[in-house]
Every structure is written in structure tokens, then in C-alpha cells.
């Protein structure tokens, strides 16, 4: 494949439609009566011309705007499919159960098709990736030839090029003073004027042509930012539950940081205090005013093995409230949730006949003692402790988890009357005496609860890329939308003065500008040939 030499002397790359320098049509695509297709300046989009190796074939596939548009449409449809039913991360049952149970056969199908985790699925990621590749290749394939063509353009253009511009007019004669006036007017309108052999090319706003490509660069940086999230350590989003009074390691910090939760605070709006909201509160019932955890952040000093008690250095006190996270070294700790946990249970050792108490004991449910001595020969032993009690399939009492959701105990109650002790099984709202009638019982006195604060630990080192991408994206949009690339050619041909003009958009604005430029001269306003064509067709 050879380069094409135009009659004006300029050498164009193979596949060029309009000579980069003079605009002569090199490949006849349309009949010579029609207007020229000015897209990409008639430059050679390489993809359209070379198709030899597999690399070229892949390249050409992605460089097609048609392919790009289809990729976007398919991704749009796929994205909307994911919104029909809740995604897996928002459900609290196993996915294989949940979908069928909640939505019947449709849910089952939805799950079988893998739509339960659509946005993390390989094919969805590949779709997004293909859009990214298409963006890069489409842009490269167009911006390079376009840049070259605009750079190579000469002032003097081929007759065919001028004649077949949308805005075109012929004047028989023009005086020197007319040219001077026109130049003055053009300068006033900030046109960049080039002259050659008495021909004029006035151009402005060329940089508007780069708008879409700047925009694409922004998008690619944006996608790159999204990709960064997959690099370990760049993006952290973890739950952290800390009981009041306890200290926990902050996840994903390599054991660097510890968070102590001193107190969780839940405040409601008070009808009597907040008079403004009285009616609203009456209508809505309880309205939460504040979720807050008073925490202390510690940093580990020196090294310690997992399991060993670390030496901690206090960094700061902070009141973590909704939208007011604790921030340190790129990490943010957000208040996100709370729950209430049983922490202590109190019982009284009571004589069943006299109903007299021989003493009380309080059991710490996360760390119960083996034996509670009540004095005077009374004591209680815990033979068995089930923090989350249930009966197993074989009828034995067991525990479902380590969390004290439903504590149950097997007690041995020792009293002066029964020095060998009596056995009693005590769970919430039930007492079983396995060996017949006991003299003593454990009567329930009360419970204490403890708040557990739920935090989200977040670190996002990809935000800069997302923000930068967004800014560049907007710059591109503005660049392409608010500026027009306008060119006006005023040239001497066959002893006449030809005027032609081109803009990438806003033809009305261009025509008004030409009117201004030609004012106070004898030159006639060129005609909008596209409008004439329309009228011919429409018969208006």
C-alpha cells in the first residue's frame, strides 16, 4: 500500500479521502454534486485500510464506533438486569435458598443465570473492559489522523473542496479595501488568519475538536481508578464490631491500629425539648437524633506476634458520629450500625418454700466464673454454659454460636441443707429440675445489656484517579460543547472571489458571523447549500 500524492504536491497516507493540504477529493465516495463529508477532515482512519495480521483485525474490531455503541447498549441492558432483584450482597440468606424462596421460578432462574452477583461477574467485567479498550482504540484511531490533517492543511484549497462546502458563495469581484475590511472584521472576532497568494484562511476554536478525546482520556483514567480498587491495599471496606469497653484490632491495617469503644450513645428527638418538631415526632414516633461512639484510637508500638498482648500508644480520642468519621493515615472509621447484646444476668438463690433469698450473683456472660460463693455455706457452680442455647437433634442441650443470644446454664446449688448440691437447668423463661423436686431454685433477677458499635473501616486510595478522571471528563465536555471549530476560506479562483465556510457545529452562529465579517463590503453572503438541498427535497 502506497501513500497518495495529490496534484498539489502533498503526500497523503493511504486511505485519505480528502487531501490533507488542499482538500481535493482523492477517493470518490459521492457524486461530485453532493456536499463533502467533512468528518475527521476526510483523513485516513488507519483501521479502515490495513487488515492483514490478527493484531490489525482485533484493532479494527475495537476501532469501530458501531462496535463501541453496541458494547455500551449491551452493558446498559446487563446493568439494568441486575436491578430487577436484590443483589447477593444485600440479602441475608444463602443465595441458593433466597431467590427461589422469595421469587419462585423466576428467582431460581435469576440465580441460575448468575444475575445474583451480576456486577462482579466475569462477563460484566469483560464488557466494561471492552468498552475501555474500544474507547482507547477508537480515540487513537481518530485523533492522530485528524491532528495530522488539521496541521497539514494549506490556505489555498482545491476548487472541488470549496465548492462542495455547505456554506459557499461566489463573487465576481472584490477590491483591496474589501479584503482589508474583512481581515479587520475577522481579527475582531478572534480568528487566526493565514494568507497565501492573496487567499485567506481564517480559523478559530480548533481546540474544540479535541474535546471528545480529552473526554475519553478522562473516562479512561476513571476506569483505571476503578481497576486500582482490585490492587490489594488500595481499597479497604470492612466491618468492625466493638463492644463497649473493649478494644479491637482495626482490620486490614496489619495490626497497626486498635480501636477502643468507650461508649455507644443513641439519642432521640425529645418532643418536649425540640418544640419545632413536635408534630413530626408525634406522627413518626421515635426519631433518632444521634448515633455516636466515643472511641480511642491506638497505634501499636514495636512488634508483637499475633496472640501476644501488644503495647499500645494512644493517638486520639474521638466521637464517631454518622458522617463524621474518625480519620487517620488515610483510614476512615464510620459509625454504621449498632446492636444490643446481653452482657450480664443476675440470679438469686431462693428457697422454694420460704421464698427467701440466700444471696445473689451476677454472671458475666462473656466470661462466666466456675463457682460463685454466696457465704454461709451457700454457693452456686456452673456445670454447663450454653451462650446461644438450643436443643440439638438428639435432644441434648447445645449452643448455636459463641454469642450470648439465648444463655442457658446448668447450675449446681449448694446449701447447708443440701451440701452435695442440687442440679437445675435454667434458660430464659424456663427451669428444668432433672432430678425431681429441688429445695432451692435460681430465680431470675435481671439482665444487663451492652451496646456493640458497628463501624465501617474504609480506605480509598483510588479517589484521586476517579476525581482526576471526572475533572478531565468535564473539561473535555466543556471544550467540545462550548467552542466551535470554525473556518472561513476567502480565495481567488478563476478571477472570482470564492467564499466557503465550515464549522463542526452551530451553523447558524457561523452564518451570523460571516454576515458580520462581510458587512461594509461589496461581497455577497454565501449560501447554505444544505438548506437549499432540503428545500429541493421538501418542495417548500
Amino acid at each position, binding site marked *: 500500500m502506497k501513500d497518495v500524492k495529490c496534484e498539489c504536491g502533498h503526500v497523503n497516507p493511504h486511505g485519505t479521502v480528502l487531501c490533507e493540504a488542499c482538500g481535493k477529493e482523492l477517493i470518490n465516495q459521492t457524486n461530485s454534486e453532493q456536499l463533502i463529508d467533512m468528518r475527521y477532515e476526510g483523513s485516513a482512519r*488507519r483501521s479502515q485500510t*490495513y487488515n492483514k*495480521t490478527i*493484531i*490489525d483485525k*482485533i*484493532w479494527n474490531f475495537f476501532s469501530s464506533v458501531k462496535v463501541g455503541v453496541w458494547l455500551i447498549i449491551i452493558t446498559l441492558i446487563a446493568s439494568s438486569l441486575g436491578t430487577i432483584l436484590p443483589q447477593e450482597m444485600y440479602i441475608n440468606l444463602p443465595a441458593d435458598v433466597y431467590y427461589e424462596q422469595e421469587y419462585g421460578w423466576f428467582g431460581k432462574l435469576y440465580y441460575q443465570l448468575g444475575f445474583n452477583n451480576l456486577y*462482579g461477574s*466475569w462477563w460484566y*467485567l*469483560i464488557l466494561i*473492559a471492552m468498552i*475501555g*479498550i474500544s474507547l*482507547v*482504540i477508537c480515540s*487513537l484511531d481518530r485523533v492522530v489522523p485528524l491532528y495530522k490533517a488539521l496541521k497539514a492543511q494549506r490556505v489555498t484549497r482545491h476548487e472541488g473542496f470549496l465548492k462542495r462546502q455547505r456554506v459557499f458563495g461566489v463573487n465576481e469581484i472584490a477590491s483591496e479595501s474589501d479584503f482589508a475590511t474583512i481581515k479587520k472584521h475577522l481579527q475582531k472576532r478572534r480568528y487566526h488568519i493565514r494568507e497565501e497568494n492573496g487567499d485567506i484562511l481564517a480559523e478559530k476554536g480548533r481546540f474544540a475538536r479535541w474535546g471528545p478525546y480529552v473526554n475519553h482520556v478522562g473516562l479512561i483514567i476513571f476506569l*483505571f481508578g476503578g*481497576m486500582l480498587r*482490585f*490492587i*490489594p491495599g488500595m481499597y479497604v471496606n470492612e466491618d468492625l464490631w466493638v463492644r463497649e469497653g473493649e478494644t*479491637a*484490632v482495626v*482490620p486490614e491495617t496489619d*495490626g497497626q491500629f486498635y480501636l477502643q469503644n468507650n461508649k455507644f450513645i443513641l439519642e432521640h428527638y425529645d418532643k418536649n425539648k425540640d418544640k419545632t418538631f413536635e408534630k413530626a415526632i408525634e406522627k413518626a414516633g421515635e426519631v433518632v437524633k444521634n448515633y455516636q461512639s466515643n472511641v480511642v484510637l491506638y497505634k501499636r508500638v514495636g512488634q508483637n*506476634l*499475633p*496472640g*501476644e498482648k501488644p503495647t499500645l500508644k494512644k493517638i486520639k480520642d474521638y466521637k464517631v458520629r454518622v458522617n463524621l468519621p474518625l480519620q487517620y493515615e488515610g483510614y476512615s472509621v464510620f459509625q454504621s450500625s449498632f446492636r444490643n447484646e446481653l452482657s450480664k444476668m443476675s440470679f438469686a438463690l431462693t428457697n422454694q418454700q420460704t421464698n427467701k433469698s440466700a444471696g445473689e450473683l451476677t454472671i458475666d456472660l*462473656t*466470661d*462466666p*466464673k*466456675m463457682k460463685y460463693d454466696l457465704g454461709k455455706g451457700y454457693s452456686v457452680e*456452673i*456445670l*454447663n*454454659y450454653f*451462650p*446461644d442455647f438450643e436443643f*440439638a437433634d438428639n435432644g441434648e442441650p*447445645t*449452643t*448455636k*454460636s*459463641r454469642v450470648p443470644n439465648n444463655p442457658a446454664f446448668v447450675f449446681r446449688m449448694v446449701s447447708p441443707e443440701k451440701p452435695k448440691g442440687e442440679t437445675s437447668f435454667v434458660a430464659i423463661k424456663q427451669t428444668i429440675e432433672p432430678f425431681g423436686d429441688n429445695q432451692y431454685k435460681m430465680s431470675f433477677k435481671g439482665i444487663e445489656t451492652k451496646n456493640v458499635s458497628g463501624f465501617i473501616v474504609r480506605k480509598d486510595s483510588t479517589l484521586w484517579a476517579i476525581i482526576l478522571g471526572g475533572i478531565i471528563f468535564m473539561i473535555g465536555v466543556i471544550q467540545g460543547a462550548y467552542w466551535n471549530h470554525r473556518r472561513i476560506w476567502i480565495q481567488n479562483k478563476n478571477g472570482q472571489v470564492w467564499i466557503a465556510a465550515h464549522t463542526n457545529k452551530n451553523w447558524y452562529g457561523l452564518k451570523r458571523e460571516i454576515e458580520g465579517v462581510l458587512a461594509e463590503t461589496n461581497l455577497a453572503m454565501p449560501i447554505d447549500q444544505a438548506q437549499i438541498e432540503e428545500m429541493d427535497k421538501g418542495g417548500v
Partner: protein
Amino acid sequence: MKKRRLVIRSIILLLLGSAVVYTLYANFTKDTKQKVAVGAQAPDFALVDMQGNKHQLSDYKGQGVFLNFWGTWCPPCKKEMPYINNQYHQYKDKGVQVLTVDIQESELAVNQFAERLKLDFPIMIDTDKEVMNTYGIDPLPATFLIDKNGKVVEYYTGELTEEKVREFMEKIKP
């Protein structure tokens, strides 16, 4: 000219392709990735057992270590514990140490459990789940086999049979 074009296109496609491949790879390994891989050095830790003795993994260099994570509330743990205890007696003089780590339970629960099942191998409580997080344990029970050089030989989750326990012990016997 043509050659240069091919080279440039190949480089661009290669760059884009590798970015895509990396993203896909990272996405699919992020959930399944084992924090402590087989063949890697087992992370050192130190915990105190129910009798108050400190056990540090690196102290057992030269011996095989059968490291088991469990909870009293987990039924398969309950089943496999006696098997582990039996094999512990068979192999403790042959250079295999058993270390078991309970996840964040009360001393009472662990002591009573050990007493009921007559367990006498070292039991430690991971109060802050630090060792659990270091080893990236999710479902219990989980067993790590560590050889005499401190390398992880095998990682196994789920209930063990006595036969399996013996097989494991045999595997890490120095």
C-alpha cells in the same frame, strides 16, 4: 512504517489486555484467596494455654505441628476432638505437636468442653481473633499441617476422621 504500526498496536493491545487480565484475576481471587498458602511459611504466633503455658509456634521448629482451630459450639469440632486427642498420644513422642486454638470463647466454656471430652493437648483461646485473622480462617474446624521447617504442608477445613488425623500426623512426622 508498517512494522512500526504493528509494533505500536501490539504494545497497546498487550497493555490493555494485561490490565483486563489482572483485574479479572484479582476479582476472582479476592474471595477465595487463602491468607496462608500451602508451601508458605506458617506465620508465627504466641498464645497462652489453659494451664498458663505460653506456646510460640517457632519454638516447635524441628517438630511437625498439627494446628487446629475450633469452637465448642461447632458440632464437627466436637466430633473430631477425641480423634485428635487419641492421635496426639500416639505421636507426641514421635515429634508431632498438637496445638489447638479456640476462637474467642469464655474460659469456662472451653474448660468444661475439654473436661467433658477428656482432652489433654494444649488448648489456647484466641481472645482477640488475631491468630484467626492472621491465618484467614473462616469456617470451623480448620486444620493446618506445619512441617519441621515451619512450612504449611496442608490446609483442611471440615470434620476429620480418626484415619485422616493419623494420615495427617504421619505426613508431618519429622
